[in-house]
C-alpha cells in the first residue's frame, strides 16, 4: 500500500548550482590538523571522544571492582570511589556521547546526507573542535590537580560540591570540572550552529526537509535542543564557580561546613537542581535522538525496506524534543521541591512515552515483511531495540512520581539510565561505526570479529544492567562505596554484585577486540567500493570513497526522492539512490 504520491519523485530539471566558496587547504597541517573539512573534524571529535571515553571505561572497571569485591582492593578508598563515579558519569554523558553523536556523526554525515560540500561555517566548525579538546584536557587535568578530581557526583549538587566534605570541593577538582563544562558549552555552541544552519540552508536541490534521512532529523533536532538547553548548565556552572571562588550564595543557604558556620546565606540548593535538570533532561534526549535517527537508517538499509511511518517518525522526533523540555523535575520528585509539582511532571513524563513508543512500533514494523540481512550493523540495531525498550519501560516506573519515591537514588535508577542511555545508544554508535566505516576508509571491518564483538557486548551489557534493577527494588542505594552492615540486604545480593562485576570486566575487555578491528581493517580490511550496503542515502553516492575534498566533484547531486526507496515494486534493484532520476530507474546502478 503506497501512500507516497508519485509527484514526490517527479523529474526535477538540472539547474546551475553555484559552487560554494570552499576553503582549500594547502599544507599537511591545514589538511589534517587545523582542518576546516567537516569530515576531518568529525574524525578528530570521534578519536578524542573515544580516548576520554576509554578513561571513563577504565574508571567503571575500578568502580565495579570495589562494588563486587569490597575490601579487596585497598587502593580504592571512599573518596576515590566518589571521584571515579563522578568522572565516569560526566565523561560518558557529555564528553563521549554528546560529542560523539553531534560532533562525530553529525559533522561527518550532515553535509554528505544533505548534499552539501561542507558545513556552512567551516572556520567556526574547526574552532569548535579545538575548544572541545581544550575542555577535555582541562577535565583530564583534574586527575592530576591537588586534591584530585571532584567527587560530587556527575550531577554536582551544591552545597556539597563546593564544600570540604566532598573530594575536590575545597580545592581544584570542582573548579576544573566547571571550567571544562563552560568550555565544552562554548565549543558545542560553535559546532551546533553549524549543524542547524547547514541542515536548514545548505541542502542540495531537491532535498526537502521531508526527504532527509532520519539520521539527519535526529541529529538536527538534538542540536536545536542542545542550543536551548546547554545555556542552563552554563549559567548554573558560572554561578557555582562564583559561589566557590568569590563566596557568593546563589546556591548556598546559611550552613555549617564540617561543624563550622560559613559566611554563606540566602541561596537555594534547589535552584541549582532546577537549572541542572532543565539542561539535564533534554541532554539525555540529545543523546537519544541521534541514536533513534541512526538506528532507523540502519534498520531500513539492512532490512532492504523503507522505514515504516517516516512522517510519524519525524513528528515523533520533534515531539520528543519539545516535550523533553517540560519533564525535568521528574529528577527532583524527592528533592524537597513543592510537592504539587509532582502531579504535573509525572503527567508530562508519561506522555512523552507515547511518541517514543510509536518509534519503537515503527522500528519493528519496518522489520515486518522485510528482507533482513543479519549484518553486524543490523545485529547492533536489534540489540538496540531490546535494550532501549527495556530501559525506556523502566523509565515509566521512575516517571510515575509516587513509584519513584522508594526507587530514587537506588540501583534501579542506575540500571535504568545505563540501559537506556549507556547500552542502547552505544549499541547504535557501534552499529553506526560498522555501517559507515567503509565510507570513511574505503574498507570493510572484519565481520567475524564484529559478530563476536556484538554478542559479547550486547549479552554482557544486558546481564550487567538487567539484574541491577532488582538490587534497586530491594533498596540498595547508589553512590555507595560499600553496603556495609544492612540487615535487609541478603548475602545473595553481594554475590550478584560480584557476578555483575565479572561480566562488566569481560565486556570491557571485549572492546579491545573492536579497537583491534578498527586499526587492523584500516590496512587489511576488504576494500568496500562506494556503496557496499547498497544504500539509498546521499553519502553513499559520492564519486570517490572516502569522499574527496568538496564531497561531490564538480556538480552537487540533485535529489528526486525520499531516503527510503528500498524494494520498490517494479524497480530492477532493491534500492533506488536518492539522486537517481525517475527516467533511469530501470538501469542497473546507473548514476545520473
Amino acid at each position, binding site marked *: 500500500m503506497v501512500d507516497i504520491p508519485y509527484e514526490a519523485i517527479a523529474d526535477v530539471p538540472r539547474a546551475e548550482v553555484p559552487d560554494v566558496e570552499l576553503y582549500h587547504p594547502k599544507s599537511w597541517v591545514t589538511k589534517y590538523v587545523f582542518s576546516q573539512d567537516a569530515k576531518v573534524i568529525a574524525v578528530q571529535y570521534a578519536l578524542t571522544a573515544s580516548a576520554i571515553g576509554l578513561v571513563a571505561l577504565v574508571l567503571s572497571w575500578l568502580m565495579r571492582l570495589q562494588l563486587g569485591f569490597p575490601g579487596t582492593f585497598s587502593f580504592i578508598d571512599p573518596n576515590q570511589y566518589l571521584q571515579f563515579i563522578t568522572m565516569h558519569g560526566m565523561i560518558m554523558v557529555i564528553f563521549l556521547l554528546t560529542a560523539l553523536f553531534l560532533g562525530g556523526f553529525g559533522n561527518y554525515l550532515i553535509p554528505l546526507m544533505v548534499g552539501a560540500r561542507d558545513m556552512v561555517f567551516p572556520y567556526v566548525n574547526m574552532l569548535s573542535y579545538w575548544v572541545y579538546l581544550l575542555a577535555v584536557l582541562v577535565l583530564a587535568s583534574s586527575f592530576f590537580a591537588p586534591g584530585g578530581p571532584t567527587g560530587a557526583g556527575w550531577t554536582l549538587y551544591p552545597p556539597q560540591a563546593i564544600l570540604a566534605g566532598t573530594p575536590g570541593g575545597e580545592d581544584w577538582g570542582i573548579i576544573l570540572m566547571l571550567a571544562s563544562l563552560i568550555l565544552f558549552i562554548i565549543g558545542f555552541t560553535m559546532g551546533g550552529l553549524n549543524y542547524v544552519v547547514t541542515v536548514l540552508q545548505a541542502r542540495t536541490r531537491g532535498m526537502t526537509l521531508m526527504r532527509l534521512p532520519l539520521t539527519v532529523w535526529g541529529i538536527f533536532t538534538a542540536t536545536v535542543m542542545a542550543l536551548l538547553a546547554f545555556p542552563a548548565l552554563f549559567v548554573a556552572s558560572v554561578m557555582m564557580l562564583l559561589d566557590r571562588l568569590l563566596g557568593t550564595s546563589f546556591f548556598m543557604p546559611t550552613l555549617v561546613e564540617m561543624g563550622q558556620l560559613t559566611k554563606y546565606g540566602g541561596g537555594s540548593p534547589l535552584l541549582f537542581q532546577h537549572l541542572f535538570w532543565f539542561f539535564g533532561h533534554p541532554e539525555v534526549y540529545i543523546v537519544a535522538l541521534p541514536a533513534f535517527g541512526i538506528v532507523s537508517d540502519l534498520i531500513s538499509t539492512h532490512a532492504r525496506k523503507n522505514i515504516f511511518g517516516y512522517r510519524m517518525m519525524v513528528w515523533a522526533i520533534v515531539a520528543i524534543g519539545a516535550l523533553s523540555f517540560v519533564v525535568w523535575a521528574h529528577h527532583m520528585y524527592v528533592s524537597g521541591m513543592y510537592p504539587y509539582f509532582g502531579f504535573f511532571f509525572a503527567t508530562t513524563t508519561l506522555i512523552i512515552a507515547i511518541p517514543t513508543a510509536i518509534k519503537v512500533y515503527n522500528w519493528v514494523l519496518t*522489520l515486518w515483511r522485510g528482507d533482513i540481512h543479519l549484518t553486524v550493523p543490523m545485529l547492533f540495531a536489534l540489540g538496540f531495540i531490546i535494550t532501549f525498550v527495556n530501559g525506556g519501560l523502566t523509565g515509566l516506573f521512575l516517571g*510515575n512520581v*509516587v513509584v519513584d519515591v522508594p526507587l530514587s537514588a537506588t540501583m534501579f535508577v542506575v540500571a535504568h539510565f545505563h540501559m537506556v542511555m549507556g547500552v542502547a545508544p552505544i549499541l547504535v554508535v557501534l552499529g553506526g561505526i560498522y555501517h559507515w566505516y567503509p565510507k570513511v576508509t574505503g574498507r570493510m571491518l572484519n565481520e567475524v570479529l564484529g559478530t563476536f564483538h556484538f554478542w559479547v557486548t550486547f549479552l554482557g551489557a544486558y546481564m550487567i544492567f538487567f539484574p541491577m534493577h532488582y538490587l534497586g527494588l530491594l533498596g540498595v542505594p547508589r553512590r555507595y562505596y560499600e553496603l556495609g552492615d544492612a540487615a535487609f540486604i541478603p548475602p545473595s545480593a553481594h554475590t550478584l554484585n560480584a557476578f555483575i562485576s565479572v561480566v562488566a570486566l569481560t565486556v570491557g575487555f571485549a572492546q579491545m577486540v573492536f579497537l583491534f578491528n578498527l586499526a587492523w581493517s584500516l590496512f587489511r580490511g576488504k576494500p568496500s567500493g562506494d556503496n557496499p550496503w547498497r544504500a539509498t542515502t546521499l553519502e553513499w553516492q559520492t564519486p570517490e570513497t572516502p569522499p574527496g575534498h568538496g564531497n561531490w566533484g564538480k556538480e552537487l547531486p540533485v535529489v528526486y526522492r525520499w531516503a527510503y526507496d528500498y524494494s520498490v515494486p517494479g524497480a530492477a534493484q532493491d534500492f533506488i539512490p536518492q539522486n537517481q532520476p525517475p527516467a533511469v530507474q530501470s538501469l542497473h546502478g546507473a548514476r545520473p
Partner: protein
Amino acid sequence: MAVALILLLILIGSVLFHLLSPWWFTPIATNWSYIDDTINITFWITGTAFFAVVAFMAYCVFRFHHKEGRRAAYNPENKRLEWWLSVGTGVGVAAMLAPGLVVWHQYVTVPADATEVEVMGQQWQWSFRLPGKDGRLGTTDVRNISPDNPMGLNRDDPYGQDDVVIENGDLHLLLGKPVKVLLRSVDVLHDFYVPEFRAKMDLVPGMVTYFWIKPIRTGTFDVLCSQLCGSAHADMRAKVIVEGEREYHAWLEKQKTFAELLGRSDLKKVTYKYGGE
C-alpha cells in the same frame, strides 16, 4: 534460526528472572503498600509491552530473514495502524499514571492526627527531636549550633525547652500512629531512607521538608542516607525502632529534653529562664 532464538531466549530469561529472583521489595513496614501495588500494576503493563515487542521482533527476524529471492514489501505507512497503536499506548500510560497520581495525592496529604518528629541530618550523622509534652517543636537556627546545643535550638523559644533531643542516636516510633517526619539539614543535602518505609524525602539546608508514614509492624530498621553528601555518605546510618506503647514510653522516659541538656552543661545559671530574658 539462531539469532531469533537467542532473542527469544533473552526474553524468556528476563521473564523467568523476574518471577524467580530472590531480590524484591523489602517487607513493608508502613501504610504505603499502595506504592507497591502501583509498582506491580506497572510491572504488568510494561512487562506485557516488553514481551509483545520483543516477541514480535524475534518472530520477524525468524520469518523475514534474507533468503535467495526474497524481496521486502513496500509499505511506507499505515495511518490506521499507527493511530490505534498510539491510542493503545495512551491507554496503557493512563492505566499507570492514574493510580500513581491517586497515591501521590495521599502522599502529600498529611493526616490531621499525625504527630510530628524531626530528623536532623549533618555530615555524617542523624539526630532526632520530638515535640515533648507541649506537642510543639521549638524553632531552630543553624547559627545556634554549638557544642552544648548541637541541634541549634533557639534558647529563647519556650516550645523548644521540652523537646526531646536525641543526638546521633536511634529513633523510636510508636506502632500504628501516623507521624509526619520533618526533615532538616544544617549543612548539605541528605535523604532519610528506610527501605521498609517506602516513603523518603531529601533534607535540604535552608528548608524544612517532610513525608508521612503510619508504621504497621514492629521491628528495627536501617536508615540509609540516600542523597550523596560527601566522603562518608555510605556510613551515615542510624536505626529506627518501631514498638508498642509500653516499650515506646519506657524509651521516651529515658530521653533527655533540651532544657535538661542545657541545664547540665550550663552550671553558671541557677534557674532556667522560660520565655527568654
